[in-house]
């Protein structure tokens, strides 16, 4: 049973002891970065780069007062809504167009153009169209996420293993069975690759849109801090943004682990590929 041996190897590399060591190293790097930051703030002055201590106390005050959490939840809501609105059609479209390669070909230059266009430059336009409320931010996030996920899903549909389809057809599978039992599950890992890449963009997109014009959200806090020469305020908003990105990453990974239990662990896949 080669599988069991692989598991044992995997355990040696990624087992509890390995995880603890990795976490300890990560903590070490974090402490080093804080030390550099602290040293810089002492040399250049808190006015320019703030300091870890200032940020931490402002952060806890903001969380305790509820103000920071309120702004964060606006940003999170914009990012989450835009993420869903952008990702769902992006994942569905290549699956729906699988049997219509002519349509896919017509769409291709549009999609490539949309993928390449700097979406953040659209933010002013969206604010013009949708106002300074949540709608313009959701639209910006959605369009950013859409193109990333579309191309991942398209790659998933194109990576379809023809032999699996033939096997299923010999066994009596209809076109619908093939789409449901072979094309769709085969594309899911690719869609998740797109979702993982798109996730930070969704939060970044929301923050940038808020920077340009908003009266709430983390981007607004950054803008407010800049206007008041309040570097601590800017850094505090950035730390919160980063935490949201972590949360988003963790959520996507959790859903992926749940849905893709059938996949061999990553180290096994690499062995198979080499």
């Amino acid at each position, binding site marked *: 049973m080669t599988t069991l041996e692989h598991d044992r190897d995997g355990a040696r590399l990624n087992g509890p002891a390995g995880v603890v060591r990795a976490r300890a190293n990560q903590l070490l790097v974090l402490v080093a970065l804080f030390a550099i930051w602290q040293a810089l703030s002492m040399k250049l002055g808190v006015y320019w780069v703030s300091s870890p201590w200032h940020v931490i106390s402002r952060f806890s005050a903001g969380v305790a007062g509820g103000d920071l959490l309120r702004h964060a939840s606006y940003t999170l809501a914009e990012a989450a809504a835009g993420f869903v609105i952008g990702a769902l059609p992006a994942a569905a479209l290549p699956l729906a167009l699988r049997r219509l390669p002519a349509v896919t070909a017509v769409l291709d230059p549009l999609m490539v153009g949309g993928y390449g266009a700097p979406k953040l430059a659209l933010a002013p336009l969206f604010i013009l169209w949708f106002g300074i409320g949540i709608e313009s931010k959701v639209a910006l996030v959605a369009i950013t996420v859409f193109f990333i996920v579309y191309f991942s899903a398209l790659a998933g549909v194109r990576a379809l293993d023809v032999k699996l389809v033939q096997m299923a057809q*010999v066994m*009596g599978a*209809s076109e619908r069975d093939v789409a449901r039992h072979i094309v769709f599950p085969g594309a899911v890992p690719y869609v998740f690759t797109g979702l993982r890449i798109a996730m930070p963009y969704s939060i970044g997109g929301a923050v940038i849109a808020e920077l340009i014009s908003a009266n709430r959200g983390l981007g607004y806090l950054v803008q407010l801090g800049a206007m008041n020469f309040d570097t601590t305020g800017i850094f505090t908003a950035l730390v919160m943004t980063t935490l949201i990105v972590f949360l988003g990453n963790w959520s996507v990974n959790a859903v992926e682990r749940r849905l893709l239990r059938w996949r061999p662990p990553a180290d096994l896949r690499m062995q198979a590929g080499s």
Partner: protein
Amino acid sequence: MADPLLEVRDLSKRFASRAGRGPSPWVIQGLSFSVKEGEFLTIVGPSGAGKTTLLNMIAQIDTASGGEVRFQSEASPLNDPKALNPGLSCRIGYVTQEDNLLPWRTTLQNVLFPLEVQGRLTAETRARADLLMRAVGLADFEHHYPHELSGGMRKRASLIRTLVYDPPVILMDEPFGALDAQTRMQLQEDLLRLWNLGRKTIVFVTHDIAEAIALGDRTLVLSRAPAHIAGEHIITIPRPRDIRGIMTHPEFGALYQRIRAQVQ
């Protein structure tokens, strides 16, 4: 004599020629043979002789350039890719060289897959699947995913996935090719045991002469490309056969020599 269940008549195949090149060579030309109901036919041929192409055409996942395949005296058009009917409405099963298990389904879900898409998932067919799983020693692995199984287990799963829906003809394309000698012998024994239960009609392609003799009622020899039938041998070794001791059977040596001389 009854009509053959499956008949291959004057079958030919050449792949589409590429632009800027001459016509592709014939892979198969003028190939004819027939299979009786309940017969275990083995076909041996050198690698590159078009064995897989032949089975792909019979299973109707590939077109033919000429000739026809008849099932119960009924011919199907094989020249038009749009008119192909893969598996001939579930009457021709096909165990391919690779196991082609769906990686996102557990062993049991893979075995039940054909029943599911054919709308035949009943208590009765589930019991049959269970029986087959136990017969090949997979009962304890029904909730494992394919990547968690050994090569031999994957082969067994892919084998019973076709047996479970009971197609009248089963094509097998070197199903045990990639396995070690020990596992392969076990699987050959499993296959003969399962075949004995239902006496399906089997067309089993291999490059291993000993395997062809050990399993078959009759062995056809394919020539080098363009493939046609170079010889036919009735295997008279009585069943049930002892796979592990087959090479010491008095008839084995002469059969092996005769077939060996034709496989070039």
